[in-house]
C-alpha cells in the first residue's frame, strides 16, 4: 500500500516536471493566438531556445546567461514570424512551419560546428544549470505521515523554472482579463477592425503579443536543456511544442483551462513512462504508444465537437488588411 502511494506521488511529481515546458509554451501560444496569429512555430522556437541556452550556458558558465540567450533566440524567431505574417501578411502556417524546419536544422548544424559532439552540446556542470530547490520546512514536515511525503516529493525539489511556470498562470489570467493590454489583446484576435477604428494599431498589438510569446517560449526551451536536462540533444523538444498547441486548443484559449490541459497531457506522458514494460496478467504489455497518442486523440475529439466546443478567437489566422 505504501509503495503504491509512493508510486502515485512520484508519477505526479513527474507530471509536474513534464508539464512545465507545456505550460510555458502553451501560454506563449495563448498570447499569440489571442492576438490573431496562429503559432505553429512553438516547437521550433523552443528548440532554438533550448540549443542557444545550452550553448550560452556552456560558454559563459551561467544558467542565467543561458536563459537570457535562449529567450533572445526565441524572441528573434517570434519577430521573424511577425515580420512575415503581420507586416507582410504572409501565411501564418507556412511561416510557422518554416520556423520549425529552420530551428531543427540550424540547431544541429551550429552544434556540429561549435562543439564537434555530433550535434550535442557538452554536458553542463551543476553550476551551469538550474538545480532543484529544497523548499523551507521539508525537514520539519518530514515526520508527519502522508503530508510530509507529499510535501517532500511533490512540492519541494523542483528547479526555479517549474515554480515560475505555475506561478505565471494566475498572473497571465490577470493580464488577459484585468488590464488594458489584455482587453486590447482579446479584441484584436476577435475583431481587428474594431480595434483599428478605435484608433489603436492592430500591427503593434500583434507584435507585442508575439514578443510576450517569444519570451515565454524561450523560457520553455531553456528549461529543457539547462534545467530539466543538462545538455542539448537533437530534436529534444520531440513534439512538445505541438502538444502545447493541442493543450491550448483543448483549454479553449483560457489560461486556467489550458493549465489543466497541460497537466492532463503531462500526466499521460508521465504515466506512459511509468507503465513502460509493465505486463498486466491476461492482457499483455500495456501499449504505451496509445497513451502517448492520447493528447492528440483528445484534441481531435474536442475539435470534432464531442467535448463541448472549442471556439477559437474569431480572426485567428487571418492577416489584417485595411480596406475601404
Amino acid at each position, binding site marked *: 500500500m505504501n509503495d503504491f502511494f509512493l508510486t502515485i506521488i512520484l508519477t505526479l511529481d513527474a507530471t509536474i516536471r513534464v508539464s512545465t515546458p507545456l505550460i510555458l509554451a502553451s501560454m506563449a501560444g495563448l498570447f499569440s493566438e489571442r492576438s490573431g496569429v496562429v503559432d505553429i512555430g512553438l516547437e521550433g522556437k523552443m528548440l532554438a531556445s533550448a540549443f542557444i541556452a545550452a550553448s550560452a550556458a556552456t560558454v559563459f558558465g551561467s544558467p542565467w546567461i543561458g536563459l537570457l540567450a535562449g529567450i533572445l533566440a526565441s524572441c528573434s524567431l517570434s519577430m521573424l514570424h511577425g515580420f512575415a505574417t503581420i507586416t507582410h501578411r504572409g501565411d501564418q502556417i507556412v511561416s510557422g512551419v518554416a520556423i520549425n524546419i529552420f530551428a531543427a536544422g540550424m540547431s544541429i548544424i551550429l552544434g556540429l560546428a561549435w562543439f564537434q559532439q555530433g550535434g550535442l552540446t557538452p554536458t553542463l556542470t551543476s553550476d551551469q544549470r538550474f538545480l532543484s530547490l529544497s523548499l523551507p520546512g521539508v525537514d520539519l514536515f518530514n515526520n508527519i505521515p502522508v503530508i510530509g511525503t507529499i510535501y517532500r516529493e511533490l512540492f519541494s525539489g523542483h528547479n526555479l523554472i517549474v515554480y515560475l511556470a505555475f506561478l505565471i498562470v494566475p498572473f497571465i489570467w490577470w493580464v488577459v482579463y*484585468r*488590464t*488594458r*493590454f*489584455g*482587453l*486590447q489583446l*482579446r*479584441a484584436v484576435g*476577435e*475583431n481587428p*477592425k*474594431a*480595434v*483599428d*477604428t*478605435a*484608433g*489603436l*494599431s492592430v500591427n503593434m498589438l500583434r507584435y507585442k503579443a508575439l514578443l510576450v510569446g517569444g519570451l515565454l517560449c524561450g523560457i520553455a526551451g531553456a528549461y529543457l536543456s539547462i534545467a530539466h536536462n543538462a545538455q542539448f540533444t537533437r530534436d529534444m523538444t520531440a513534439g512538445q511544442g505541438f502538444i502545447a498547441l493541442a493543450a491550448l486548443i483543448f483549454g479553449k484559449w483560457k489560461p486556467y483551462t489550458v493549465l489543466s490541459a497541460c497537466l492532463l497531457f503531462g500526466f499521460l506522458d508521465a504515466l506512459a513512462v511509468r507503465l513502460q514494460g509493465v505486463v498486466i496478467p491476461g492482457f499483455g504489455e500495456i501499449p504505451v504508444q496509445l497513451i502517448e497518442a492520447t493528447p492528440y486523440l483528445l484534441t481531435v475529439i474536442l475539435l470534432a465537437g464531442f467535448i463541448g466546443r472549442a471556439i477559437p478567437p*474569431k480572426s485567428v489566422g487571418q492577416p489584417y488588411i*485595411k480596406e*475601404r
Partner: protein
Amino acid sequence: MEESKYAIELVDIDKRFGPVYANNKVCLKVETGSVHGIIGENGAGKSTLMSILYGFYKADSGNIKVFGNKLQFNDSHQAIKSGIGMVHQHFMLVDNFTVIENVILGSEGGSLLHEGLKSARDELTRLGKEYGLKVDLDATIESLSVGSQQRVEILKALYKGAKILILDEPTGVLTPQETQDLFRIFTALKKEGVTIILITHKLHEIISITDNVSVMRGGKMVAHRQTSKTNREDLAELMVGRKVLLQVSKDEKIRGEVLLKVSNLSVRDSNNIDRLNDISFEIHAGEIVGIAGVSGNGQSTLLKVLSGITPVSSGTIEILGHKMDADNLIYPDQLRELGLAHVPEDRQRMGLIGNFTASETSIIGYHNDKRINDKLILNNSKVRENCKNLMSDFDVRPGNPDLRSDNFSGGNQQKLIVAREFERDPKILLIGQPTRGVDIGAIEFIHKRIIALRDSGRAVLLVSVELEEIMSISDRIVVLCDGQVSGRIDSKDADEKTLGMMMANVFSKEDNLEALSG
C-alpha cells in the same frame, strides 16, 4: 468652446485609387448642430469621403477643417481626438465582449481596467439617460439585437467625446420602429448640439430627418440643397443624372393556378434550433409574394430550402406538382430543370464566382444545358455569344463577356445574375434582396423585369429587407418573425407601420386575422 459656424469644412478633396478618382475636388460644408445628409449611388464616393474624414484614408490633396481648425489626419485616433465619431455600416464591435468592454476599448483610461470600467459605467448611464440610448451595459454584443448593437456604436462614439457623428447607412438593418427610435435619438443629440452626418441611399429618410443634403455622383459633389426646399424626385434625378421613376407601375392581374405550395414547413439547423417553424403559404401563377422581415428571421433559410440547398425537416413543399419533404429532397439542378430559378440573396458568395469571367458566370448552374454543350466539352464560343446577348438584353455594363465577374459593379453583377436566371423563362422565380447594394437606375430596371415576368403568368417569391420594395412590387406580403409567419397582408392594404408591427410580431394571431379582414 467651438463657436465655428461649420463643424466640418472639406475643400477640394482628391482621392485616387490607381487611375480612378474616388473623390474629385469634393467640397462640403456641414453646419454645427445640423443633421446633414449625403446621398449618392453606390460607388459615388460617399464612403471614401467619410473614410478620409475619419482618418481611415489619407486624401491625395485638399483641406479638412474641423470646427474651424485645419487638420491633417493620419489615423482614426486623431479624428477621434478632434471630436469625430463614426458608426460604420458593419458594426465595429467585438461580439464576445460586453457592451461596456466594447465602449472602453481604445480609451481605457489607465493600464488597469478596474478604474476605467467604473468611471465608464457612470458616464454611460448618464449618456443613456440623456439621449434615450438604453442598453444593458453588461450584456455581450452577440446577445443583443441589431438595433441595440447600433446604439452601442453610438454610445461608443459619444463616450469618446464625439461632437460630430457620422452614420453610414444606419437604417439598412433596422425595423421601421427601430428606425423611428434612431431618429428620436438624432433629435435628442441635435438638441445637445451634436452634428450628425447621415449617409444613405434612402430618399425618404433624407426628407424626413435632415436639415441639409449633399448629393454625390461619380466621385463629385453635384449639389447641395436645403432639405425643405427640395423633394425626392429632384434628389433622385440629381443622384442618377436623369429622370427616375420612383414608383413602379403594375396592373392588376388575375392569378392562375397554384405553382408553389408550402405546407407546415419546418427547418431545424444542426444545433437543433428551428430556423423555420410551421410555415404555410402558396403562390399562384401571375403573382408576386413578398417575404418581409428583419434580416435573420428565417428568410434566408426559406430561400435555401425552396431552392433545394437545405433539406426540409418536416412539412411539405409542392413545386409545380412535385412534392418535396423530409424524405424526398429534390436537388437544385433537378429543380432548375423543372423550371425554378433562384437569384440568391448573397450574390458574392452564392450568385457568382469572382474570378470567373462574365460568360462563365452566365452559365453557372446551367452548365449542363445541351444548347451550350458539344458532345464532351463546353462550346465556349456559344457561351460567349449567349452571354453577349444577355448583357445587351439586361443592360450589363461594360458589355464584355471576358471581364472577370469581380470587376463589375454590384448593380451590374446583379443584372448579370438576373439575366442568367431569367433567360430560361422560369415558371417560378425565387429572388432574394434583388436590389441590395444596387444603384437606383438598376433597381428600376430589375423591378420592371420582375413585374414583366409576373405579367407573363409566372410565380415570384421576393425576399427583401426593403419595405418599400416589398410594398411596391408584391401582390401579397407574408411577414416572418423568428422563423414563423407573423403576418399576412395584401400589399394594397399594407403600410410601413403595420408591416413594422408585424415584423416585430406585435399582433397576436387573432388581431392578425382582424387586420386581414379589416
